[in-house]
């Protein structure tokens, strides 16, 4: 077997070459440093198995970033036979800097000159054979985007395996004696890699290599200081300069630029896109278009996908055991609960699909780093990064977004501290699923000031997120690694349709797989907590008596008709009622065109029941029963609703809600609100459903949820303002928390992301509610005050001077460490 390591700088098209030769698909992006995980593919050629491992894209082979460490440790520990170095032919000089570092490792290198088409378009004439001669290694021209060069690359790998290889050496002139001395220090029990390479890396102060040579670290450090004293140069700068000089020699001898000085397409595009006056309008336009087409149009698309989900729900209800009048089997309740939880998530798939496709396009085109370039100055003030823009927008910069894709889009942020701060502040943005909740509360308590309140709600979130980011970066994230804002602005590329679509589906699938399973697990726990311990025996008897009374009156009415005999048992009436409810549910979620089919279906399945559900025009008796049936169905719903409320009230979750009351009363929350917040953890939609079901005390009065809440809750608008403030800051939904765990790689941060917002939200709500009660503020006044405070705080924090280390000098680290 031949083990091949694929190495190259960011934006060199390494991923496309990887897909080309191994035939496997992988994330492809036009954004520095997006490939962080190791991917490998195995294939065979002429009976030989070849394994290709895709190393992370790195500009260099030192150890100053995680990617570089990962790449180097792979070379050291896994001993690949051949290194395939992908080089961007249109940016050959900087790419060759890495090539020289790879050649030094001492393993056979095959250079793949990728993007030859782009280089040709830019008027670059590259003498491939000359480069091969100068580097004494095979050089294969290719174009990953066009699928050209696969055979030649595989052929070169096969040949490289069998051809004897002499170790490659750069003559480092005045450093040579030092390299030889260091080489002598490295004993034979060291790793199997080239000793010269180890010596050079050790002199560079490379931590991965020095860790492997603990005995000689001090001696090597001493030699470096000697070199500095003798030549007034430090080893790292000297080596970098030598390698760039070598790359320059190759560039000058083998590349002819026919359009030198002429503006490239990228230069012209940047002239517009990064123009001082045009950049912001263009940026807003792009953000608006993304938002409009994913959130707004995607939401409209759910009108078409929702019937599918509703049909799925009806199907599950259909195969669950039927209710015996007011006695619904728990398994049926459970099935409906699970389907509702799953549907709440699946409903967002069209939005995610559009969103992920658009993000993939932006990544491939090369706009992402430009966005960071334009906005960096603002975000820097809050400890964030220019690249935080998109995550925050997706999280919900306008009326609503979703934190899940927002947090997933933080992957490319180069600065670790800013990335963490972005992950932890995106959940404060306006979640789409919170909108129905706001609408419910605003409709109930702020009908006159709805527009103003909605404006407050939708604009406050960005400022809250910025404040949180600033607080976190100056406290808990203070010691996190920051990396310098040295970011490549890669040339613009046209994205490929296949690449974009593939990536969009891949990300959606990941969302369903990772988030879906855990959301369902939490849904099971919540179901148990809402269901147990269930109704008391007295309650059961009381409800049963009421049910019997309803049935008895129905029998009596039915007995007056000729159908009386057939409708005189609990079984037959339950069956009729269930068929009636099922029929109505199906008709409601069906299009007019399907209605006929449903009718025919039911006629075939239950012809007798259909006589009453859709009574023939000439059958007055059937019509009477139809009327009775409608009343009975409504009364049954009423009883079921009351039973549910009693069950919730005595449930574990209800108990928790009650026991939180002594604390939450400061924010004006009673146990019902507590239960709604607790149950909204699985999916925020359920907050509205829970509140709605708690307040619709008597289904017979047919009030809308808003009206029911305003009348039955006993809340004032000030209560509502406190609830909205709490909801603005919290609660994070479980799907978001899973993504936080995935992106931070730690449960600790996930727990932090749960409890920090809850604390913050509770404190803010309590403060506003307590002060509001004391000073007699109205709901709007209290909320306006909260809004004003948030804006003022954000502006104040943004104006605080950035504490950055931009001085140098002083004692060296070794002295400081000793003291």
């Amino acid at each position, binding site marked *: 077997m031949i083990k091949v390591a694929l190495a190259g700088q960011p934006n060199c098209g390494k991923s496309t070459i990887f897909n080309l030769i191994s035939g496997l698909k992988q994330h492809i992006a036009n954004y520095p440093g997006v490939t962080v995980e190791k991917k490998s593919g195995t294939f065979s050629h002429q009976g030989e198995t070849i394994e290709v491992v895709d190393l992370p894209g790195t500009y260099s082979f030192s150890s100053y970033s995680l990617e570089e460490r990962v790449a180097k440790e792979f070379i050291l520990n896994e001993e690949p036979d051949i290194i395939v170095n992908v080089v961007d032919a249109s940016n050959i000089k900087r790419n060759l800097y890495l090539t020289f570092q790879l050649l030094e490792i001492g393993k056979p290198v095959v250079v793949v000159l990728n993007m030859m088409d782009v280089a040709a378009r830019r008027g670059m004439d590259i003498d491939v054979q000359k480069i091969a001669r100068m580097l004494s290694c095979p050089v294969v021209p290719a174009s990953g985007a066009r699928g050209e060069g696969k055979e030649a690359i595989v052929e070169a790998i096969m040949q490289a395996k069998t051809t004897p290889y002499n170790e490659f050496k750069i003559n480092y002139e005045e450093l040579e004696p030092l390299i030889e001395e260091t080489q002598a220090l490295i004993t034979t029990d060291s790793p199997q890699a080239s000793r010269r390479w180890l010596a050079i890396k050790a002199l560079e102060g490379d931590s991965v290599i020095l860790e492997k040579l603990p005995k000689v670290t001090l001696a090597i450090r001493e030699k470096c200081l000697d070199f500095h004293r003798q030549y007034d140069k430090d080893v790292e700068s000297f080596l970098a300069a030598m390698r*760039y000089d070598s790359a320059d020699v190759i560039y000058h001898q083998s590349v002819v630029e026919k359009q030198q000085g002429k503006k490239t397409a990228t230069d012209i595009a940047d002239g517009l896109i990064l123009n001082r006056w045009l950049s912001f309008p263009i940026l807003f336009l792009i953000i608006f278009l993304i938002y409009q087409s994913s959130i707004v149009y995607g939401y409209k698309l759910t009108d078409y996908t929702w019937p599918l989900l509703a049909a799925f729900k009806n199907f599950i209800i259909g195969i669950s055991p039927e209710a015996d009048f007011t006695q619904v089997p728990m398994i049926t309740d459970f099935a409906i609960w699970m389907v509702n939880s799953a549907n709440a998530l699946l409903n967002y798939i069209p939005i995610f699909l559009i969103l992920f496709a658009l993000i993939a396009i932006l990544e491939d085109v090369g706009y992402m780093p430009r966005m960071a370039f334009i906005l*960096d100055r603002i975000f820097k003030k809050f400890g964030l990064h220019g690249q935080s823009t998109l995550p925050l927008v997706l999280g919900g910069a306008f009326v609503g977004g979703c934190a899940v894709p927002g947090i997933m889009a933080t992957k490319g942020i180069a600065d670790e501290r800013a990335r963490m701060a972005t992950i932890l502040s995106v959940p404060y943005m306006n979640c789409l699923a919170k909108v129905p909740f706001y609408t419910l509360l605003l409709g109930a308590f702020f009908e006159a000031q709805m527009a103003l309140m909605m404006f407050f709600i939708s604009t406050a979130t960005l400022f809250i997120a910025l404040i949180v980011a600033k607080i976190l970066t100056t406290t808990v994230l203070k010691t996190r690694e920051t990396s310098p804002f040295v970011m490549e602005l890669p040339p613009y590329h046209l994205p490929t349709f296949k690449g974009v679509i593939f990536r969009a589906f891949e990300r959606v699938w990941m969302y369903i797989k990772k988030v879906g399973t855990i959301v369902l697990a939490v849904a099971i726990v919540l179901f148990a907590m809402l269901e147990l311990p269930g109704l008391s025996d007295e309650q059961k008897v009381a409800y049963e008596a009421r049910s019997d009374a309803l049935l008895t009156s129905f029998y009596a009415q039915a007995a007056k008709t000729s159908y009386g005999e057939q409708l005189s048992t609990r079984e037959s009436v339950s069956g009729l009622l269930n068929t009636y409810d099922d029929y109505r549910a199906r008709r409601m979620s069906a299009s007019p065109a399907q209605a006929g089919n449903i009718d025919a279906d039911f006629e075939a399945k239950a012809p007798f029941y259909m006589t009453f559900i859709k009574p023939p025009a000439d059958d007055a008796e059937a019509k009477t029963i139809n009327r009775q049936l409608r009343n009975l169905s409504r009364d049954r719903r009423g009883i079921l609703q009351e039973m549910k409320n009693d069950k919730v009230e005595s449930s574990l979750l209800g108990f928790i809600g009650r026991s939180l009351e002594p604390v939450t009363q400061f924010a004006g929350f009673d146990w019902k609100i507590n239960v709604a917040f607790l149950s909204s953890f699985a999916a925020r939609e359920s907050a509205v459903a829970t509140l709605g079901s708690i307040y619709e005390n008597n289904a017979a009065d047919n009030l809308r949820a808003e009206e029911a809440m305003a009348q039955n809750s006993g809340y004032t608008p000030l209560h509502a303002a406190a609830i909205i403030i709490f909801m603005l800051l919290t609660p994070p939904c479980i799907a978001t928390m899973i993504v936080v765990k995935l992106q931070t790689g730690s449960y600790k941060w996930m727990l932090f992301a749960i409890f920090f917002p809850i604390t913050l939200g509770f404190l803010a709500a309590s403060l506003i509610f307590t002060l509001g009660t004391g000073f007699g503020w109205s709901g709007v006044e209290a909320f306006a005050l909260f809004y004003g405070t948030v804006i003022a705080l954000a502006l104040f924090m943004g104006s605080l001077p950035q504490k950055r280390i931009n001085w140098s000098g002083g004692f060296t680290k070794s002295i400081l460490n000793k003291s």
Partner: protein
Amino acid sequence: MCLDELASGTLCRIIKVHAHDALKYKLLDMGFVSGAQVSVVREAPLYDPMELKIHNYLLSLRKSEAKLVEVELV
């Protein structure tokens, strides 16, 4: 003279990089070696960071970091 002082369109040559640790390595790797030529393409719309062209590719650098790069005009 430091890189952050230069106006758009200026071409200069690097004398020395005064950065330390991670920033120094990063700048060296991106080609900020003594003698390399850098041209200032433009400032960001909000005047910071700046866009540079070095070794025939484009790169953005905050001014606080450009301050650490000593240059001379060509």
